[in-house]
């Protein structure tokens, strides 16, 4: 039966080539746009170099202080004191990485200025995040405790400072008016990564006053666990720790949470409330936006489909006269439409592949590589089915209601 439908569908598509082109164009471009957008989101959220353990990590990267007396409040990142003294001493995490948000600073080589990003980290940073070392190795706990002036730099930084592919191990780099001995070079990351930096140095070298006991500062912690099953226990422990924090009399309400990576994005949006980071609300809103975006191509397709049905009224009339039920006809038409959508889907995948190649080669963000992966393909498949049903159901219903006599009489 399906095979027959398939044959009919292909025959119909071949008959009116211009209409087939319009339908395919609409479907494939719409799907290509969806694929490209999901590839961006996928790139931002899914674990990747160097944060490969993202699935079993929780982040402490926001601190919100409020006053119970008036409206005043401060928002920011946690301070070094908070992440080092409280978060790093939690029992559930296996490892806790501490890192500063990074600040831009300058180096001057051969009368050329280099703007680079400097991040202060602890030694566990290198265990939580799996960097690929081209040269040397990371600094260890002892080096951090002794405040040794050592640095791990990125490949891009090495190339800019020492020249293309020059060995940098053991050499000195001067930035922020300080000389650091290079003990490692790592593969560069895209600037969009939350652990991106050009130079990583031990936190003990920070120019800030690390003994300041304020809760707001420019740091964050990444907690690594054995498995996701520990998240519940970890969050309970985190919340208990927060409840026991010493309070500032002016800002006595403290809000900070251990969030999964996607939650760190939605936490900053207005619909995050208390412990709920608002991922669900965000997904609902995103779905509504995508549906609105699909509205125009769908309407277009419905219009074209209706025109095509009228074209086929004699066929419908004959089939009805020979006893085909409305249901069979609706079913057939929807299957045909799904076939068309899937053809469009294939073209769309090819198109989006080309678009992604162009984006990757254009070097929008250095080291960002967008790709279609299984996740994205799955979403595309869902979009195809949805699109096919949405644009097929109404015309099919119109078709099935056609009277036999009028259908036969037309033309």
């Amino acid at each position, binding site marked *: 039966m399906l095979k027959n439908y398939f044959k009919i569908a292909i025959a119909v598509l071949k008959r009116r080539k211009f209409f087939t082109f319009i339908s395919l*164009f*609409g479907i494939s471009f719409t799907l290509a746009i969806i694929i490209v957008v999901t590839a961006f989101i996928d790139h931002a959220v899914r674990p990747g170099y160097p944060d490969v353990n993202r699935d079993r990590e929780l982040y402490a990267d926001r601190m919100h202080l409020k006053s119970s007396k008036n409206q005043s409040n401060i928002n920011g990142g946690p301070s070094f004191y908070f992440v080092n003294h409280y978060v790093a001493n939690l029992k559930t995490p296996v490892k806790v990485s501490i890192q500063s948000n990074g600040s831009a600073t300058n180096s001057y080589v051969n009368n050329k200025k280099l703007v680079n990003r400097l991040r202060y980290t602890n030694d566990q940073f290198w265990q939580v995040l799996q960097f690929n070392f081209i040269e040397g190795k990371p600094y260890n706990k002892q080096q951090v405790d002794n405040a040794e002036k050592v640095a791990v730099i990125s490949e891009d930084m090495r190339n800019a400072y020492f020249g293309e592919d020059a060995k940098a191990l053991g050499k000195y780099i001067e930035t922020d*008016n300080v000389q650091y001995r290079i003990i490692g070079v790592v593969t560069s990351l895209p600037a969009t990564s939350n652990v991106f930096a050009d130079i990583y140095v031990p936190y003990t070298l920070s120019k800030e006053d690390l003994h300041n006991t304020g809760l707001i500062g420019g740091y964050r912690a990444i907690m690594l666990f054995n498995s996701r099953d520990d998240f519940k226990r970890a969050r309970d422990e985190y919340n208990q720790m927060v409840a026991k924090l010493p309070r500032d009399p002016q800002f006595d309400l403290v809000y900070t949470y251990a969030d999964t990576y996607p939650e760190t994005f939605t936490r900053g949006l207005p619909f995050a409330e208390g412990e709920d980071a608002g991922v669900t609300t965000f997904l609902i809103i995103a779905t509504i936006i995508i549906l609105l975006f699909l509205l125009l191509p769908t309407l277009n397709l419905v*219009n074209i489909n209706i025109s095509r049905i009228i074209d086929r009224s004699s066929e419908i009339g004959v089939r009805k006269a020979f006893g085909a039920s409305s249901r069979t006809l609706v079913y057939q038409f929807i299957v045909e439409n799904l076939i068309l959508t899937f053809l469009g889907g294939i073209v769309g995948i090819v198109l989006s592949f080309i678009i992604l190649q162009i984006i990757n080669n254009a070097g929008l963000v250095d080291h960002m590589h967008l790709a279609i992966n299984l996740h994205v393909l799955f979403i595309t498949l869902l979009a195809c089915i949805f699109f096919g049903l949405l644009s097929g159901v109404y015309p099919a219903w119109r078709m099935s209601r056609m009277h036999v006599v009028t259908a036969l009489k037309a033309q």
Partner: protein
Amino acid sequence: MIKHLFKLTWNKKKQTFLLMTEIFVSFIVMFAVFTMVVFYYQNYSRERGFNYENVWNLGYDNPPGMQNIDSIVAFRQYLKQMIKAMPQVQDVSFSDANIPFGDANIETYINYNKAGMNAEIYTVDEDYKNTLNVQIVEGRWFTKQDDVFRERPVVINETLKKKVFGDENAVGKLITDAGFGGTMKVIGVIHDLKDKGDYVRPPAGYYKKMDTSYSRGAQIIIKVKPNADAAFESKLYKTLSNAIPNTSIDIKHMDKERIIKNTQLLVPVIVLFTIAGFLIINVALGLFGVLWYSINRRKSEIGLRRAIGASRGSISKQLMGEALALSTMSLLAGTFFAVQFPLLNVFNLASNTYLIANGLAVLFIYLLVLICSLYPSRQAAAIYPAEALHED
């Protein structure tokens, strides 16, 4: 004739309902696109109001342990003298974090005549005007003597002046800011600074003087002479790094910051426009297909009209007229929807932005429909009456 066209379209409203909806949605999309284009263009064509060429800036924090307000002020003076003494430096000014093309903006709420409004607040010193080449419209800029006052002297920008005082003279009048300045006396009005980017409307704002009560770290704005090169910059960097021990120093160039600011705004807009472009191509193709189809189905009708003497021109005119009448109905509904934006003052844009955008969107849709119906109507007009009448 026109009445007749509308009657024809109205009679077929059931068949063409979906087509009308499609045109309606396309209109809404184009209205949104044109509103953005018009708004950005209007902002882009404003005067900038200051000069960013050869201007560098950097931020610093007070050295640790420096708590005494006198030593903080003295430290600021010391830095200023030191930078000013360099031969390649033309002017130096200090500001709070709210600098042109910076990441921070500081907002406050001011009161006048029992009404109130939001305004940007800038804390700057007396050299700000010369460093950035700010234009005075009325009154004067700060001088050293403004540190002593009864009512805090402030300089306001033109947008604020227009909102608060209209066409009246503003100099000498009082405004109130309960949060920051208290009761303040306007001593001057300056031309708006388009300081948030080339495509952003300058906000209403006022400038207060960075006086001896200002105790936080600050931004240093340096106007350098054209001969200042990287060698000088590295020297400046060294000097400042030694003078300010606890801050990682990053010297920024305002012309580059401006490009970054503009790009941040334009990239999502360009992405949106590209998507809207694809949607419209899609709609255009669909419209063409549907019109072509429905006109083809009316062969016998057209043949009859031709047989009783209608010319080719009048046939294609009628068919195109019908398509335009159809879109007029959608556009009326769309305009009704679009008019709500200026009426309800959504997004706080000027109403002429919406009106121009509405006009452009209407024009665009008409043009689109006209182009899409051109070929099908000509095709229909070429039908031979004998052939068409024979068909059934």
